[in-house]
């Protein structure tokens, strides 16, 4: 039996099965759904280890999950009939129906919107989306988020409990609720992608998979008729452009390679092409979201160096800052300023940012002074950056720069 094939099947079916169990059968208990799915996989492992993977493994899994759920209801029914006979008569009838692709798609959609609950905090949302929507194991999530299994388990447990309580009130979402929750769903997908893309862990496979999963979910959303598409297209474009550089980015021996250190021939041209396609599609209508602006910035980064390039990037950052402030946007904008206007202007502006305890900030100052051939200042700020860097690989990268500068 091919282990890799097996784990791929399990991963891709995990969220499908849970979604169908919850939505189609009206199961509000995520934990029960997860138990049934785990049981299904266990049975599959046992059966398949003797006979090999069946011709239609997914259908096999769906059938078994369905049987297990029915069994659960039968047992529950018997229990309830014995303990409370008057309730048993009113028990809901479970019809046995084939689980079709259409049902899976509808269920998946509903699941995404129930799980991306705006009441949950960022971390919990990430954990639960990775676990239930993408089928990552607790251990994989812990590795990807630089955490441990216990913490992740706790977060997921609390999130499930919160979702279960809320869903007593919201049993099904109306189409206007879908549309109004779309922003939050996109935010979770965006977080997921960034987690995969910028994570400082060296688990290349998990990181890539998280990125692909985020793209899969947004493509899935873009195929649904009820949503306005521009925002979703912009997010897809943004992810395509970033993902095109993923291989080049993670090919460094010590941590990720920055944009200007990457081997451009390793950029994925197919994804760049797709990014352009979606960026064009996102421009229909007059909605401009931060995804549009970030996608446009990412697009310019795939272009050759021209006179206008950095000014375009700078203006997009300026615009982005009128929608949302974050230290990363502020620092990237300052770097663009050095290329578009002048290094001196960028240094002056960088000092105004006052991000006092951020090692990226001191790295930026060091880089700007490096561009200005002011070695003393470069070393001074690299030393400051080391003070605030808390991860070993980050310290190492800064040390390398210090060594180069001191030569």
């Amino acid at each position, binding site marked *: 039996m091919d282990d890799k094939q097996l784990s791929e099947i399990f991963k891709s079916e995990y969220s499908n099965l849970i979604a169908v169990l919850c939505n189609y059968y009206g199961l509000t208990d995520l934990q029960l759904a997860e138990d049934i799915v785990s049981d299904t996989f266990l049975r599959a492992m046992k059966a398949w280890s003797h006979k090999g993977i069946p011709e239609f493994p997914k259908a096999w899994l769906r059938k078994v999950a369905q049987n297990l759920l029915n069994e659960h209801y039968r047992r529950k029914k018997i229990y309830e009939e014995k303990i409370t006979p008057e309730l048993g008569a009113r028990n809901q009838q479970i019809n046995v129906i084939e689980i079709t692709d259409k049902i899976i798609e509808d269920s998946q959609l509903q699941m995404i919107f129930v799980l991306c609950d705006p009441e949950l905090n960022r971390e919990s949302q990430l954990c639960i989306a990775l676990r239930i929507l993408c089928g990552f194991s607790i251990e994989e999530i812990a590795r990807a988020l630089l955490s441990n299994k216990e913490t992740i388990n706790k977060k997921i447990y609390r999130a499930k409990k919160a979702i279960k309580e809320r869903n007593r009130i919201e049993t099904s979402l109306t189409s206007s609720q879908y549309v109004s929750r779309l922003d939050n769903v996109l935010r979770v997908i965006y977080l997921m992608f960034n987690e995969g893309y910028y994570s400082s862990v060296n688990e290349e496979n998990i990181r890539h998979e998280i990125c692909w999963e985020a793209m899969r979910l947004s493509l899935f959303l873009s195929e649904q008729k009820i949503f306005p598409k521009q925002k979703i297209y912009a997010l897809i474009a943004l992810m395509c452009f970033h993902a095109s550089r993923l291989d080049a980015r993670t090919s460094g021996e010590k941590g990720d390679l920055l944009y200007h250190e990457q081997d451009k021939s390793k950029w994925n041209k197919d994804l760049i092409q797709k990014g352009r396609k979606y960026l064009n599609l996102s421009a229909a209508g007059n909605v401009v979201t931060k995804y549009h602006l970030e996608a446009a910035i990412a697009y310019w980064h795939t272009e050759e160096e021209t006179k206008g390039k950095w*000014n375009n990037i*700078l*203006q997009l*950052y*300026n*615009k982005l*800052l*009128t929608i949302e*402030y974050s230290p990363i*946007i*502020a620092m990237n*904008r*300052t770097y663009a*300023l050095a290329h578009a*206007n002048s290094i001196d202007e960028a240094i002056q*502006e960088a000092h*105004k*940012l*006052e991000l006092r305890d951020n090692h990226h900030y001191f790295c930026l100052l060091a880089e700007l002074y490096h561009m200005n051939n002011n070695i003393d200042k470069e070393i001074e700020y690299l030393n400051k950056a080391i003070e605030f860097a808390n991860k070993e690989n980050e310290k190492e990268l800064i040390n390398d720069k210090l060594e180069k500068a001191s030569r």
Partner: protein
Amino acid sequence: MKNFMMLFHSEPNPEFNPTPEQIEEEVKAWQDWMGGIGAQGKLKNPGEALGFEGKTMHADGSITDGPYAEVKEIVGGFIIVSADSIEEAIQLSNGCPALSSGGKVEVRDIMVFDGM
């Protein structure tokens, strides 16, 4: 942090007919300057730029053309910034393109009404 409105005053020059390049330059100067405030996390609201068309309603019900009351100077636009003090807020106007074309920047605190 408190919010302040920054008002840009200028004296429009009807003789001045900018070329497309000059307009582009002017737009860039404004966007770069506002981007700098945004990068400090102090741009509360990017505000609006105002055009030259205007009318004024007077207490006696009469309506006159133009935003110009007794002075030639007009308000060309506004943004809202956040700062710890009005002293800090006025410092943010350093580098404002309104100043380089001979205009003025006025900073006003925005009143906060409790319970409203």
